[in-house]
């Protein structure tokens, strides 16, 4: 019920319904709670309702941070490696 993973919006129909795709399988979901959802958006769906639209820029910012940390870790010796 709560193991929600991102779903792609395939089409938006009248009446607040949308066709979404999760791991290649299509389902119907309500987008009443996220009117900003459009075709191509990724949404989080719980109990047949999209509750949030994922923000691409924010996601890229988080990934960039991970990348920087991985690069820093590669450059700096690990405390346990010294001596």
């Amino acid at each position, binding site marked *: 019920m*709560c193991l929600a993973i991102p779903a792609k919006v395939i089409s938006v129909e009248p009446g607040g319904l949308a066709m979404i795709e999760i791991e290649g399988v299509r389902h119907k979901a309500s987008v009443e*709670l996220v009117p900003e959802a459009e075709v191509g958006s990724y949404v989080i769906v719980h*109990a047949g309702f999209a509750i949030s639209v994922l923000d691409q820029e924010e996601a890229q910012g988080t990934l960039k941070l*991970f990348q920087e940390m991985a690069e*820093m870790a590669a450059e700096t010796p*690990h405390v346990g490696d010294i001596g």
Partner: protein
Amino acid sequence: MKFISEFREGALGSGLVRRIERLSRPIRIMEVCGGHTHVICRYGIRDLLPPDIQLIHGPGCPVCVIPQHEIEKAIELSTRPGILLCCFGDVMRVPTRRGTLFSLARGRGSVKMVYSPLEAIEMAAALPDKEIVFFAIGFETTAPSTALALKRASSQGLANFKVLSTHFIIPPALRVLVKDSSSRIGAFIAPGHVTTIIGPDAYCFLADEYNRPVVVTGFEPLDLLQAIMLILQQAAEGKPRVENQYTRAVRVQGNRRALEAMDEVFEIRPAIWRGLGLIPGTGLGIAPAFAPWDAEKAWDLSQVEPAPEPPGCLCGDVLKGVSQPKDCSLFAVSCTPDSPVGPCMVSPEGACAAHYRYRGA
């Protein structure tokens, strides 16, 4: 960007793990979402951490925190003539004194599994001679869907649709946990999807009044590692606050439409949590304006008595973070996912089920 594989890139985890090792200090960090419990076990996050950092599971699995007698109320309704009970699949296998909802679905055919309350609404419209009862469970993530279903029933005048509500809300339960000295919680990994609805400010009291770091967190392994790192950073700085790691999904204001629908349809009431007992302000009953669709108003269920915990079952302590699944003498012996004794072994979001499934992983 598919928002999944990018956040599972193992090479990117090394930087986070290094940083965590440098900042490591003795701390107990509680996650309060079954989704996080699942990810922690599935990806062996614990094995990546220094031994000083303990991850403990909280009451984040909605099926696990429902008291047995609430499920027995649903069972009672499903045995009455003319009623078809609709519920999510997770709750159907929880054992009670009267069997499971699953056994009733197979036997009498008076229970039906649904993925969304809207399916129950459609059923009510298609079967006007039946009373369709939706057994509404879950936290702030599913409560808005029940609210919208009730609003639809009201606007369509569906008199044969009812809701049996056992929705819970999270923040006041965290206050009880942080004050409970047996749990010894040093920081919280806050539930990402609940927070898409309520917004991160709902947890400010944990930082302001109890000096605990709180990080609202996403559901991929790198999200969990970053959250742990942010918690350790806050602890090192000595400045506990609420941080939002899951910025791609969680907005500061939450989801206003969902909150408005919940406000309109529900009223806050005390609720009994399995393991935690009665907590004021954590239950969502149905507001008087929607009383015609309230199953508890339509039928007298007062004869369903509270149930004792199954003998030997430690689910109550597991839900408070006091015990780990392996501390329970029933774990993986007489209690398994195929034959669960307690609710934490039933749902994939339950701590016992996650530990069982990924043990030795």
